């Protein structure tokens, strides 16, 4: 039994997670010379949840490895560039309260040197001082020029995309190019075998679809990992209080500027996401049902749309309503079944962690892909420890956004209540009063949020720079680096094209209204 080879992968679910898994596993394992048959089974009538519409820069590498070219991807998915997340109203809700968490981490100096020089001289915001990306986002510029080779950027970037179209593109690519077998069937898992592994999925007509390794991409339902194998969810709603969302798509006027960051705007009992695509904006209101009822949330969403989207009919929007758990599975890999995507865990989309966790899961799986069943228990244990660590770090990083707030509404006070703050996070924030976040705080090779990310949130939200002196030489180094960033900012803001103009070159049909806009 232990010598049995892994030859057949069966993926359950055809959303972003399922098709990304199908593409990545077939492309990568084929490149590694492994003969693996990949089958994706999806029920014909289950809609995708469609909230994961922001990626991280990792997606560029993922798409390149899968073999999809960038312009084709951008066009097929109505995608736009994402250079980070802009947080509005999180600190105190005043008019000037906004900061960027950019994707570009500066390399010109150590983070501590930057922090010291910025706090000694700093007139500008932290992100604006450390990276040209702040100005690029402020001016709605693309992170790259049209003539650059695929997936290269002057600034680091990921994407905003239409999740439905993305899944469709991946499905075509998987079936037509990568030889993935696609089956539209309503299935149930066969009962686990005595050793706790799955042998097959069974269709409504009783046909068995056998597999050696199963990937559960069935979304929040978790049909295999939760349903068949009974792996429990680790509940983290004790830390992150939001449990509802209203989601809507709002069309935009041709030629209107396209934001190149996700905008997350705080409200009295949660926050609103705003994701700009060339043809529409995906906007959603996240809230805690204990502090805000559905009607209040709808009014908040309508108010935002009326204010933020020119020409939108805010009164008539009818959003989709979502109720979501907050948590993750401690053992996403159980037996011969790996949960990838929402089946492995769901956290509010504040830092767009959903799609990147799919990519990281796939990378970890392929890096040590089991050749024989004998190695599975050890690999599974290692995988589960890694992803428990990652989910916990995301929980803490999201909590940091609430913890630093000085907003006074009951919801915001509840978010800061000491009993809701993970002890490790509380200890780190205490440490950062004395020293800037550094590599020792984030010791893993692939930390999901780096010291830089933490610094962008901390100092973006007005956290005091450490008073501990770092020495004259480090300070001088930091100042030189700030000067370099300032020069680079001027050069890039004059050389990068407007985001809208870039996207319109891909889709000439959208160009029509641009001339008029440019002169307005």
């Amino acid at each position, binding site marked *: 039994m232990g010598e049995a080879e892994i030859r057949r992968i069966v993926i359950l679910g055809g959303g972003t997670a399922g098709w990304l898994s199908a593409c990545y596993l077939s492309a990568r394992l084929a490149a590694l010379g492994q003969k693996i048959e990949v089958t994706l089974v999806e029920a014909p009538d289950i809609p995708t949840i469609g909230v994961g519409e922001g990626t991280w820069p990792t997606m560029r590498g993922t798409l390149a490895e899968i073999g999809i070219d960038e312009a084709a991807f951008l066009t097929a998915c109505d995608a736009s560039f994402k250079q980070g997340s802009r947080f509005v109203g999180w600190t105190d809700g005043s008019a000037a309260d906004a900061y960027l968490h950019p994707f570009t981490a500066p390399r010109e100096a150590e983070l501590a040197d930057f922090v010291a020089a910025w706090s000694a001289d700093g007139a500008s915001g932290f992100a604006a001082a450390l990276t040209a990306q702040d100005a690029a986002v402020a*001016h709605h510029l*693309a992170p790259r*020029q*049209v*003539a650059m080779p695929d997936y290269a950027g002057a600034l680091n970037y990921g994407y905003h995309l239409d999740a439905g179209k993305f899944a469709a593109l991946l499905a075509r690519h998987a079936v037509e190019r990568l030889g993935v077998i696609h089956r539209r069937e309503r299935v149930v898992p066969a009962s686990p075998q005595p050793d706790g592994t799955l042998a097959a999925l069974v269709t409504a007509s009783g046909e068995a679809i056998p597999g050696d390794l199963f990937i559960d991409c069935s979304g929040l339902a978790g049909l295999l990992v939760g349903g068949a194998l009974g792996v429990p969810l680790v509940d983290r709603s004790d830390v992150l209080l939001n449990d509802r969302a209203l989601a809507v798509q709002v069309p935009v006027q041709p030629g209107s500027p396209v934001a190149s960051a996700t905008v997350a705007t705080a409200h009295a009992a949660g926050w609103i996401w705003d994701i700009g695509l060339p043809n529409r904006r995906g906007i959603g209101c996240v809230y805690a049902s204990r502090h805000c009822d559905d009607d209040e949330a709808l009014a908040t969403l309508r108010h935002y749309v009326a204010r933020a989207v020119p020409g939108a009919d805010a009164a008539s929007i009818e959003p989709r309503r979502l109720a979501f758990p907050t948590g993750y599975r401690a053992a996403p890999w159980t037996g011969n079944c790996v949960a990838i995507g929402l089946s492995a865990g769901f956290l509010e989309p504040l830092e767009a962690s959903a799609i990147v966790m799919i990519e990281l899961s796939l990378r970890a799986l392929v890096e040590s892909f089991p050749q024989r069943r004998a190695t599975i228990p050890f690999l599974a244990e290692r995988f589960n420890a890694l992803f428990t660590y990652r989910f916990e770090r995301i929980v803490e990083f999201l909590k940091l956004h609430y913890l630093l707030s000085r907003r006074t509404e009951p919801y915001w006070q509840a978010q800061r209540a000491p009993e809701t703050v993970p002890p490790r996070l509380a200890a780190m924030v205490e440490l950062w009063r004395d020293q800037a976040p550094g590599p020792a705080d984030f010791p893993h090779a692939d930390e999901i949020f780096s010291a830089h990310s933490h610094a962008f949130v901390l100092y973006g939200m007005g956290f005091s720079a450490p008073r501990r002196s770092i020495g004259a030489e480090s300070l001088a180094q930091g100042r030189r680096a700030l000067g370099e960033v300032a*020069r680079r900012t*001027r*050069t890039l*803001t*004059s*050389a990068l*094209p*407007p985001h809208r*103009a*870039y996207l*319109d*070159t891909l889709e000439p049909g959208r160009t029509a209204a*641009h*001339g008029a806009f*440019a*002169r307005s």
Partner: protein
Amino acid sequence: MSQHQVLDSLAHRDLRVRTDAGAELGDAVMACLVMPAEFRQAQAHYPIVFRRDLESGTFSALALFGFDNGENLFLEGDRWDAAWKPLAQAVQPFLIGRAEPGGPATQVHVDLSSPRLVTDGAGGVRLFDAAGHASPYLEDIAQKLGDLDAGYRASAAFFAALERHRLLEPFSLDVPLADGTQHQLVGFHIIDEDRLRALDAAALGELHADGHLLPLFMALASVGRFSDLIARKNRRA
């Protein structure tokens, strides 16, 4: 039809300049003016030749890119295959203007008819930032225009010295191509090497003191670039 205007941060705030190369951008040219102050860099890439203006009778220097009108052998699609361009080429579509004719105050002028200028689309580099301040690109252009102006004003003395010592000789070059055809380049002058070699110490001392000796020898050295130009021509044939 050229259409020159004083560059203005308000009127031209949204102008962007395409800095790539291409025939459609006006780069299909056989030669461009090069200043003696640039000869050191120029001779590493292009032959330098001299031409007498028939009306004024004065000389100017050119960096050669090709053998026929409209032929630029350094232009390969959207790429200019040399690491350096003469200032007069690099500042396109900008030029130096004067507040008053002959006056000392210079201004940046722009040729609004240039195909390099765009106002929409995703190409080009901005001239001004949102606050109306010059972009680093425009600062660089202004610097180059200043250098070009200084180089131009210094060049008259150089050409006068060449004429005084009769150091220019008419030049014709037969260009036999690999396909058997024969081309000829006529109408230019180059440095007369024999006359240069015959100059006495006093003349050399004077040329050296005036800073003319270095560009003179650089122009002489640049003749070696003709073999590269012919090789480029052969590759196109």
